[in-house]
Every structure is written in structure tokens, then in C-alpha cells.
């Protein structure tokens, strides 16, 4: 069962979005995408405080907006994987984050990739969308 609404972004350590994807099954709407990203950015402050209170990477749901929930995963280097969603599937979300995390590590290890810069690889995008279909 796929989430109808889901927006996924990766935010660098310096609070700059380096990857975005609308991954829900609902019809894509430009204004909705903007709203989703706005909500996710607003949640960054909460993440900032919460990240120092636990050594876990998966912070679960940390914020909500109407019936939408913000789940967050913070990597060792404080890159944040953030998902806005309407599903209630913590296990799926955790698996999604973990696998995207591994893709992110592989991207980061590439010496030619500058840490904190936009992830432009279309292969990365394809793989993230496939993971979203599998887990969300």
C-alpha cells in the first residue's frame, strides 16, 4: 500500500537541500510540492535540537502538519533525510531511510562529489524512487 502523499528531501549539513523528490502516488501538483518543501524546512529547527539528544539516526516522526507527518533520519555527518508523508508505516520508512542512507554514503565516497553539493546523478534519483515504491 503506497502512501498517497510523500515528499522526500535530503538537506546538507549547512541546511541546503541537495536532493528533492515527490514520491507519493497522488497526482503531482506544483503548488503542493512547494508547500511540502516549506513544511520540511520548517521542521529543520526541531531536528537540530533533537539530533543531539539521541545517538540513533532514525528520529521517527518529529513534526506534523494537518494529516501529514515529518519523519527524519540524521546521518553521522548531519546530512538529514526528511520525509513528509501520510502513511503510518514506521518500519517501511525506516527501511527506506536506511537504504537511501547507503546510497548517500556511496555518493559521498566518490572523490569527485563535493560534500554538501547537489546530487545530480539520475541513477541516484531512479534508485530512490524505486525504494519509495518498495517501502512507502
Amino acid at each position, binding site marked *: 500500500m503506497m502512501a498517497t502523499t510523500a515528499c522526500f528531501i535530503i538537506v546538507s549539513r549547512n541546511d541546503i537541500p541537495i536532493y528533492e523528490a515527490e514520491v507519493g502516488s497522488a497526482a503531482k501538483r506544483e503548488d503542493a510540492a512547494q508547500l511540502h518543501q516549506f513544511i520540511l524546512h520548517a521542521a529543520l529547527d526541531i531536528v537540530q535540537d533533537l539530533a543531539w539528544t539521541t545517538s540513533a539516526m532514525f528520529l521517527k516522526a518529529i513534526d506534523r502538519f494537518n494529516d501529514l507527518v515529518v519523519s527524519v533520519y540524521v546521518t553521522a555527518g548531519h546530512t538529514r533525510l526528511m520525509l513528509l508523508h501520510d502513511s503510518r508505516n514506521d518500519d517501511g520508512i525506516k527501511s527506506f531511510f536506511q537504504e537511501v542512507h547507503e546510497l548517500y554514503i*556511496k555518493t559521498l*565516497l*566518490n*572523490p*569527485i*562529489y*563535493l560534500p554538501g553539493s547537489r546530487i*545530480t*546523478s539520475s541513477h541516484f534519483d531512479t534508485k530512490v524512487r524505486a525504494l519509495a515504491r518498495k517501502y512507502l
Partner: protein
Amino acid sequence: MAPAGPRFGDAIFANVERVNAELFTLTYGAIVRQLLTDLEEVEEVNKQLDQMGYNIGIRLIDEFLAKSNVSRCVDFKETAEMIAKVGFKMFLGVSASVTNWDADGTCCGIVLEDNPLVDFVELPDTCQGLYYCNILSGVIRGALEMVSMKTEITWVRDMLRGDDAFELQVKLLKQVPEEYPYKDDE
């Protein structure tokens, strides 16, 4: 002549001090990254990597000779086998094979079965002209020059560019005879 079988290289590698390949791979990555920043043009980076390899090669050859205990190779064919079977194994822990000899035995291909330099690498669109492993061609060129062989080395296959292997073409340009320091006309 010491035997240049594959196990000979394994035995040397087993006996030398080793480090985690990730330290090596990441350090090489940091070098390539520095060059891309300093030189901007991919073509210039290729040249600099080759030059750095050459600088390494002219030093590394003595280590190769000292620790492998091999003596002078009888011909270029034996030299190529030595690089592939002993050289790559001794330094990088990987095997390579020699293929594609030309008729007069002065040009061949060295195919790497593994390549620790590229473990994490993917070339983005902006770096498509980069020969990421160009340091290797410089190393071989430098090392051979120190034992009187002038060579020209080019990549004929590069997995980072979508090929099915890493293959260096090694072409012997000329074998400089050992110089007698006191020529009659001097």
C-alpha cells in the same frame, strides 16, 4: 631470472607491510579532487596525474627491484609479464594479465583484474574526459625509463568510461643502450 609466475607476486605481497586499501583509495581521491580544483581543465588533470605517476615510477622501480630480487629481463615480453604479474601484485595486491601482443613484440595490453583506485568512483557528466587512473600509466612509464626503456602508455579500455575492463597499452619506443660514460668523441 626469477620465476614470474602469479604465485611469485602473491608471495611478495604476502611478505610486504600492507595498509587498508581504503586509506589508499581515499587519499588518491583527495589528490584527484585537489587537481580538479587547482587545474579546472580535465585535460590538465590527466597530464598532471601522468606526471605524478612518472615521478612515483622513477622512485618506485628501485623498491621493486630491491624487494622482488628480480634481475634484468631478457626482453620486453618478459618485462611486460613482470609488471603485470609481479609489479601490480606487489604494490596494489591485484593481478593483471598481458594480452594483445603485436607481431614484433614491442606493444601489448595490460589488463587489470581489479583496480583499488576506483573503488568509490563514478564520473559525473562534467568529468567525462577524465582518465581517473592516469597515475598508473605514468608510474609504468617512469619505472621503465629508469631501466632504459622509453615507452608510450595509453588507456585503451576504462571501466569508468563504460568499458568492460581497464586496459593499458604499453608501446616500447626504444630501448636505450646502457651508457658508457666516456665516449671517444668527448
